[in-house]
C-alpha cells in the first residue's frame, strides 16, 4: 500500500498532464481554419499529393505530365471563393468560407507551387491518408493526427527518460506558446520537426548515457528510437532541419565525449559522428569564408544592420508569435511578448546553477546560432519559427546542464516556479485569444467575448469562448503539473 500510493499519484499526475496537454494543443488546433499555417496552400498541396496520384485529390495535368493538379479550393490565389480567402488580411475573418465557390472541391487546377519531382516525405505520406474533398474536415483530422504524434513522442520521452522529459517540459512551458503549440498542431511539416526532433534527441541522449553505464541492448534500442524520431523530423522538412538535426547530433557527441566510462571504440565513433556533422555543416554553410563574406558591411543597408533587425525580430517571434504565427498576419498583443520574456527569464535565472564552463560555451554557441540563422536567410527563413526548434533544444540543453546535469526544476525556488507558470499560462491565454479572434471576427474587432458577432467557426464542436477557456486552463494546468513541486505527504 505504501508503495502503491505514490505510484498511483504519479500515474494520475501523468494522465492528467497528458489530457491537459492534449486539450491545450487541441484548442490551438481549433483556433483557425484549415490552411492557416504559413504557406498553408503549399503544405496542404504537398499533403494532398503525398499519397501519389489519386482521383479528385491529386491528378496529373492533362497539359503537362510533370504538373500536378489539385482541388481549386487549395490554391491560395483562387480568389475570395477559396479555402484560403482569409489569408493576408488580419481584419478579415474566415467568414468568407461561407461564400465559397460551390465547385471549388471538384475543379482541379495546377498548383504552380509544387516542385517536381515532389518532395514526398513520411510526413506527407502519412498525412495524405486524411486528405479528402472536404478540406476543412481533412485539415482538422491532420491536426489531430499531429497532436497524437506529438503526445506519443513526448509520452515515450516521459516514460523512458523522465529527467530529460522534465527539462524539455520546462523549456516547452516557457517557449511553447504561442509558436510551438501552434505548429505542433498545424498541417505543416514543421509540426514533426517541433515535436519529434527535441524528443528524439533527448531519447537518444538519455539512452546513450544509460547504454554507456549499463551496456544493456534495450538502451541501445532507445538510442535507435531517438534516432528514428530525429530522422522523421529531418525527413519532414529536410531543407532546413538538416541543420538542427546536425546540431542535435553534435550536442550528443559533446555531452558524452568526456564521459568517464567511454572506451576507445566509443570515442572513435563519437568523433566520427561529430566530424561527419561538422563536415556536413561546413559543406552546406560554405565555410568560414562564406560566413565572413556574409558578415561584411554593405553600407547603411548592410549586413550588420540586417543582422540586428532580423535577429531581434526572430528572437521576439520566438516568445511573442507575431510574424511566425499563423498565416503571417495574426496580430499578437504586446503583453504576450512581455509575459514570454518574464517566463523565460525567471525560469533561466531560477534554474541557473552548477553549470560547467563547457556547457556554458556550448549553450552560448547555440544561442549564437539561434540569433544568426534567421539573419542569414537562404534556406533558413527570416522568422522565429524557422529556428524555434533550435531555441527549444538550446533551452532544454541549458536546463539539462543546470544543477550539474540534474533536473533543473528541482533547484528552482517555489516563488519562481509560480511566476513561470503564471506568466506562461497568461501568455498562452492572451495569444490563443488573439489567434481565435483573428479568424472568428478579424483582428480589427476588440472585445473579450469571442462568441459575439462570430462570422466563422467550425460547424460542430465547442464554441470559440469554450475553446479558449478550456485551452487556457489546460495549458496552465499542464504547466503547473510540470513546474510546480509535487506535494509531499505529511
Amino acid at each position: 500500500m505504501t508503495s502503491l500510493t505514490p505510484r498511483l499519484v504519479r500515474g494520475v499526475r501523468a494522465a492528467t498532464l497528458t489530457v491537459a496537454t492534449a486539450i491545450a494543443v487541441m484548442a490551438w488546433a481549433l483556433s483557425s481554419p484549415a490552411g492557416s499555417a504559413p504557406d498553408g496552400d503549399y503544405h496542404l498541396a504537398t499533403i494532398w499529393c503525398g499519397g501519389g496520384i489519386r482521383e479528385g485529390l491529386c491528378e496529373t495535368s492533362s497539359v503537362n505530365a510533370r504538373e500536378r493538379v489539385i482541388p481549386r479550393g487549395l490554391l491560395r490565389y483562387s480568389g475570395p471563393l477559396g479555402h484560403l480567402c482569409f489569408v493576408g488580411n488580419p481584419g478579415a475573418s474566415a467568414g468568407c468560407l461561407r461564400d465559397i465557390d460551390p465547385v471549388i472541391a471538384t475543379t482541379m487546377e495546377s498548383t504552380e507551387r509544387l516542385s517536381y519531382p515532389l518532395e514526398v516525405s513520411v510526413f506527407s505520406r502519412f498525412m495524405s491518408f486524411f486528405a479528402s474533398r472536404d478540406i476543412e474536415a481533412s485539415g482538422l483530422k491532420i491536426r489531430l493526427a499531429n497532436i497524437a504524434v506529438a503526445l506519443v513522442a513526448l509520452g515515450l520521452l516521459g516514460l523512458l527518460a523522465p529527467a530529460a522529459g522534465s527539462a524539455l517540459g520546462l523549456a516547452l512551458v516557457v517557449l511553447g506558446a504561442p509558436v510551438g503549440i501552434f505548429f505542433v498542431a498545424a498541417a505543416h511539416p514543421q509540426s514533426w520537426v517541433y515535436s519529434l526532433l527535441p524528443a528524439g534527441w533527448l531519447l537518444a541522449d538519455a539512452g546513450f548515457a544509460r547504454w554507456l553505464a549499463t551496456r544493456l541492448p534495450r538502451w541501445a534500442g532507445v538510442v535507435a528510437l531517438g534516432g528514428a524520431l530525429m530522422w522523421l523530423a529531418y525527413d519532414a522538412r529536410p531543407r532546413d532541419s538538416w541543420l538542427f538535426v546536425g546540431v542535435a547530433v553534435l550536442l550528443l557527441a559533446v555531452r558524452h565525449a568526456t564521459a568517464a566510462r567511454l572506451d576507445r571504440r566509443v570515442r572513435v565513433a563519437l568523433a566520427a559522428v561529430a566530424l561527419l556533422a561538422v563536415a556536413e555543416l561546413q559543406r552546406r554553410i560554405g565555410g568560414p569564408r562564406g560566413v565572413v563574406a556574409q558578415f561584411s558591411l554593405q553600407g547603411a543597408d548592410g549586413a550588420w544592420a540586417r543582422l540586428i533587425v532580423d535577429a531581434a525580430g526572430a528572437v521576439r517571434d520566438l516568445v511573442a508569435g507575431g510574424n511566425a504565427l499563423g498565416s503571417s498576419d495574426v496580430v499578437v498583443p504586446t503583453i504576450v511578448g512581455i509575459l514570454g520574456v518574464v517566463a523565460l527569464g525567471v525560469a533561466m535565472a531560477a534554474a541557473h546553477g552548477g553549470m560547467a564552463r563547457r556547457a556554458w560555451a556550448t549553450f552560448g554557441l547555440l544561442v549564437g546560432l539561434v540569433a544568426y540563422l534567421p539573419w542569414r536567410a537562404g534556406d533558413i527563413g527570416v522568422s522565429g519559427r524557422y529556428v524555434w526548434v533550435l531555441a527549444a533544444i538550446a533551452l532544454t540543453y541549458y536546463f539539462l546542464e543546470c544543477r550539474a546535469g540534474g533536473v533543473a526544476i528541482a533547484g528552482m525556488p517555489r516563488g519562481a516556479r509560480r511566476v513561470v507558470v503564471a506568466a506562461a499560462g497568461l501568455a498562452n491565454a492572451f495569444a490563443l485569444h488573439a489567434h481565435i479572434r483573428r479568424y472568428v471576427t478579424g483582428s480589427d474587432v476588440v472585445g473579450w467575448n469571442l462568441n459575439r458577432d462570430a462570422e466563422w467557426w467550425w460547424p460542430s464542436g465547442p464554441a470559440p469562448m469554450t475553446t479558449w477557456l478550456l485551452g487556457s486552463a489546460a495549458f496552465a494546468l499542464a504547466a503547473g503539473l510540470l513546474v510546480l513541486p509535487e506535494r509531499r505527504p505529511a
Partner: protein
Amino acid sequence: MIPVLRRAARPVAGALPALRRAARPAAAVLAAALLALGVVRSERTFTNPMDGDAIPVGYWTVRDLRLAVEAHAGDPAEPARVVLVETGQNASLDPRYEYAWQLVIRGLAPYTTARDAADPADGAATEWYLAHAGDLFTVWDDVFKSGLYAQGAKALLIGTLVAGGATTGERVMYPLNVISPDYDTGDTEIDYTVRPLYPEEYTAEISSLNTFGLEPRTIPFDGRLRLEDVTLLVEPLDVRTLPG
C-alpha cells in the same frame, strides 16, 4: 494588553496551517467551478454562424459519389444507398401530353444533395453534395446511365401550394415518377417529365421518405399546379451501380 492579544491570537495562529492546507484544494475547486460556469455560459450563448450554412466543401461529381459514399459507409457489404434531394424556390406542373406533366423547378440550389439512406443513430444523416457545375443535366444523365432510372425514378415532390398567384401556406406532397430530366433552360432550373405514381407504386420505401407526415395527393387530371419552397426527394439509389 499584549499578552491578552497574544492569547487571543493563539487559536487563530493554530488554525493558520489548516487554513493554508485547505486553501489549495479550495482554490482548485473554485477555479474548476468558474471554468465550468464559463463553459456552460459560452455554449448557451454562442450562435454558430455556420449553422445551416455548411461550407460547401464536399461538392461531388457523380463519378466519385460512389467513392465518397463507400469511404464513409465503413462496411463494404452494406448497400451504399443515397436519396437524391433537389431544392428550389418554386415549381410548376403543367400537362405535357397524355398522363404526363412537365415539372420545372426554378431557383434551384447550386447542388444536389445525396443523403445517406441508412438510418443514422443520431438522426443526422450523412450528406454529400453534387456540384451542378453549370450542368445539372449531366449529373442526372450520369445517374440515368446506371440504368436504375431508365423507366423513371420514384420521387416525392413537396412544396407550399400557390393559388391565384398567392401562397396558401399549405404544405402538400405529390408522389411522382420523374423521367427525362432536362437542363437547358438556365443555370437555376431543371425540367422533368413526370407522371403520378400508381397506388401500387407508392411503396413503403418511397413513403418512408415522407418524414413530414403529409398525405399523398394526386395531380388533378389536365390540371396545373404552382408550388413554392420546393423539395424533390428521389427514391434511394445504390451508388455502387453508378458509372465511373
